[in-house]
């Protein structure tokens, strides 16, 4: 039982680890691009923004199991197979990229426009703005977004068992559900709970310590604006 579980744990972490990495690498630029191309952005391009936004929306709301099946040909083209851990990473990563991109977009939007203006006034170009302002200033939020993405990917990876990728979800279904080995199922549940808690805690801790250093005082101005408008809405 032990080798079975440790193999499953390893499989899950392997799939989640790689797909998180790819999601961050792909989602970060996509999310930043969504902000930059928006109306009033540094690379304003309404058409591109609409197109990217639409693709992200559709891909993000696609049920994972369908995405996995639909992407089979693509997966085979990339990895040479549609079965196993490597094959599962492809749909996991592709499902997570738009998910992470939206989170990045929200995080980057929170960065004060005045900072962008300041860097422009120093003679910085768009790339400087991204590198020196948008990413470092939204880093605490970006870390939180990564944590959220990892947790979501652990959830998705349970379904990866259907393509023979193994992992904890696969154990829970095959042994716990199909063979009525309830004990094993509960162990996987416990392991998942621990793994998720540890990741969440580590992510929160990292984000908070960065945040404390930066120490923004008070809520973001955007939030206040929103509250003010709802307040006036009530009185009307």
């Amino acid at each position, binding site marked *: 039982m032990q080798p079975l579980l440790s193999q499953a744990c390893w499989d899950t972490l392997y799939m989640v680890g790689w797909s998180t990495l790819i999601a961050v690498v792909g989602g970060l630029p996509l999310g930043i691009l969504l902000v930059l191309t928006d109306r009033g952005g540094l*690379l304003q391009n309404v058409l591109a923004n609409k197109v990217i936004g639409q693709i992200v929306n559709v891909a993000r709301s696609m049920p994972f199991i369908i995405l996995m099946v639909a992407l089979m040909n693509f997966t085979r083209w990339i990895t040479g197979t549609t079965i196993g851990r490597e094959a599962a990473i492809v749909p996991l990563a592709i499902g997570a990229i738009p998910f992470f991109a939206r989170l990045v977009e929200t995080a980057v939007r929170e960065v004060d426009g005045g*900072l962008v203006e300041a860097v422009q*006034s*120093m*003679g910085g*170009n768009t790339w400087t703005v991204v590198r020196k302002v948008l990413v470092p200033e939204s880093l605490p939020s970006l870390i939180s977004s990564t944590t959220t993405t990892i947790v979501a990917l652990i959830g998705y990876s349970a379904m990866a068992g259907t393509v023979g990728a193994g992992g904890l979800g696969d154990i829970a279904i095959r042994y716990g559900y199909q063979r009525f080995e309830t004990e094993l199922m509960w162990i996987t549940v416990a392991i998942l709970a621990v793994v998720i808690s540890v990741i969440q805690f580590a992510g929160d801790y990292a984000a908070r310590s960065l945040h404390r250093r*930066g120490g923004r005082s008070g809520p973001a101005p955007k939030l206040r604006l929103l509250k003010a408008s709802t307040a006036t809405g009530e009185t009307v």
Partner: protein
Amino acid sequence: MITTTGLTKVYRSRGREVTALDGVDLHVREGEVYGVIGQSGAGKSSLIRCVNLLERPTAGTVTVDGRDLTALAGRGPRAGRELRQARSRIGMVFQHFNLLSSRTVQDNVELPLEILGTSGKERSRKALELLDLVGLTGKAKAYPAQLSGGQKQRVGIARALAGDPKVLLSDEATSALDPETTRSILQLLRDLNRQLGLTVLLITHEMDVVKTICDSAALMENGRIVEHGTVSELLATPGSELAAALFPVGGEASGDDRTVLDVTFHGEAATQPVISQLSRTYNIDISILGAAIDTVGGLQIGRMRIELPGRYEDNVVPIGFLREQGLQIDVLGREALLVKDGAQ
């Protein structure tokens, strides 16, 4: 140093057009502190943003230190290399400081140097030197969140000076600060202006700022400059709105058949006992409605609102006497009186 000609900025949104700047001609001389004052919505912000082309003017030209920035800007919405280079020689400080919260004070000051491609050692030498200059020695490793508002603005100023600019733009730099801190920041700007020969263009809605540090000032209303000149010129201009606002005196006439005068003293005249001379010479009773003495742009200025018995017609001679003494006299309500007389 800074010249704008026919600067116009029109914002278009959903088919509506808003004219923020309506043909602004501004001329800032080298080494002076120039204040643009106006209420919010007057176009001050658009003006200062057009000077380093953070906003693209719809029409008109901007020349800074002999370079026509509008020509460098090119046609696209993004700033080309030449414009960015020109910008790095124009410092800018902001109302809300705009410091990067993820960087230490020193790293914030180094940011413009990073953009300029200065080497690491040189960057930190320069940053520490600038922090000394603005009075923040020992704060290099602190984060902006640990500083007070005044200290944050000092970092902002140090950062703006990192590229050795000849021109400093100040966008309401003291509006988020308390009066005490405002004074110390203005003092710092004044010192930098004198020590480094820095030309400062500032916008503000606080008359005190203009009064404390400006050599010249302009008043903006509805996207136009309605009055401009050196502070002493403005104060010597009869009926100048800016002068009256710079140096307000209150007091209402106590009756209909009274003449109310605003007397402005500067230079020699300020030391003469003109009021008692007037009273003695013409044997009239003078009441003082309001008075103030202040230093504006480094000049001692006094202003007094006095009331003479009788209508304007009865007081032509005493007013002439005051003018002879080199005083500037504004007769209040004179135009209104004339209209009334005409109606009768």
